[in-house]
């Protein structure tokens, strides 16, 4: 069978050539009426993922600790221990997986240990200038290819670390010790952050 014949057969096999069921349109209206548009409720979902937490990722992997209704209106919203720092700049993040979070706009604030003020400023500049468009997809891909569940749960952290590592030479990924260290992030998700 040649390419043209195969294309024709695939097209003929497409069930969508059939007429749309009459009861589909009323169903669209019903579901619309039953759902509560977020723009009307303007409910603010506040969610916290503590340092080291991960995002809702493919396969339902999650190591996050969520705390809805936690007061997160103004970062910093989580206490930091001595020698820990949080970036002032944030990374835009839209979860690509994990109902019901898909599509929700989030801000992700990387956190560190043992950074100097200059290093933290450099990190902020990198965060501001880096193109984070694909971070969600990259995190999901990394989770999907991770050999262990623990690594998969840290996929988003690893993607962020990879993007920031060159900014602070010698910075480890949760390596401990006295040197500069990436330890995770805090994240807040709200319906109006887009």
């Amino acid at each position, binding site marked *: *069978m*040649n*390419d043209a*014949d*195969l*294309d024709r*057969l*695939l*097209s*003929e*096999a*497409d*069930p*969508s050539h*059939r007429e*749309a*069921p*009459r*009861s*589909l*349109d*009323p*169903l*669209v209206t*019903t*579901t*619309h009426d*039953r*759902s*509560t*548009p*977020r*723009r009307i409720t303007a409910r603010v979902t506040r969610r916290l993922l503590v340092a080291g937490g991960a995002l809702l990722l*493919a396969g339902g992997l999650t190591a996050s600790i969520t705390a809805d209704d936690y007061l997160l209106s103004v970062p910093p919203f989580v206490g930091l221990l001595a020698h820990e720092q949080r970036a002032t700049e944030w990374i835009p993040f*839209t979860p*690509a*997986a994990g*109902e*019901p979070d*898909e*599509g*929700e*706009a989030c801000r992700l604030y990387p956190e560190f240990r043992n950074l100097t003020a200059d290093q933290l400023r450099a990190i902020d500049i990198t965060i501001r200038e880096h193109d984070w468009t694909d971070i969600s*997809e990259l995190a*999901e*891909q990394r989770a*999907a290819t991770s050999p262990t569940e623990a690594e998969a749960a840290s996929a988003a952290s690893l993607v962020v670390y990879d993007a920031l590592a060159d900014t602070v030479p010698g910075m480890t990924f949760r390596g401990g010790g006295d040197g500069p260290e990436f330890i995770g992030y805090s994240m807040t998700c709200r*319906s109006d952050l*887009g």
Partner: protein
Amino acid sequence: MTMTRDRAASDVVDALVRREAVALLRYFERRVLPIEDAADLVSETLLVIWRRIDALPSDEERARMWMFGIARRVLATHRRSSIRRAGLADRLRDELATSGHSAERDPRVDALDAAMALLDTRDQEIIRLVHWEGFTLRATAKLLRMREGTVRSRYSRARARLAASLSGL
């Protein structure tokens, strides 16, 4: 003036969702048995879409991908467990049950179905998304969270296998 613009935007979204509802229904019809389950799945998907309508991308292609991304997750949930039946889709279930099996099947389409079944499940999905849902290979790669190059090579290989399996037709 703003209200007029908001209304216009709302109408655009409404038209888009209504148009894609058919494609979403077909998406599920091709992937679930019994076919009536597609009614519950599209109902669940529409509920999620309406709830998340503010997140709908303004670009039409991205909006379509966003909707099918939700459909994929609804389907995955369905495969892991049973989607809760809310009763919203009962009429559609009945309609699918009575119309879905009545059409006479072309034996060549049956042969294609059999050839598709021999493919790797991921390759089957690539063929369906490209030929039946109308996505480009690039969009298919994004939907499946795969590298574009990988999707291209798998698509090419899958087509070659289909053609070989169907060479007797």
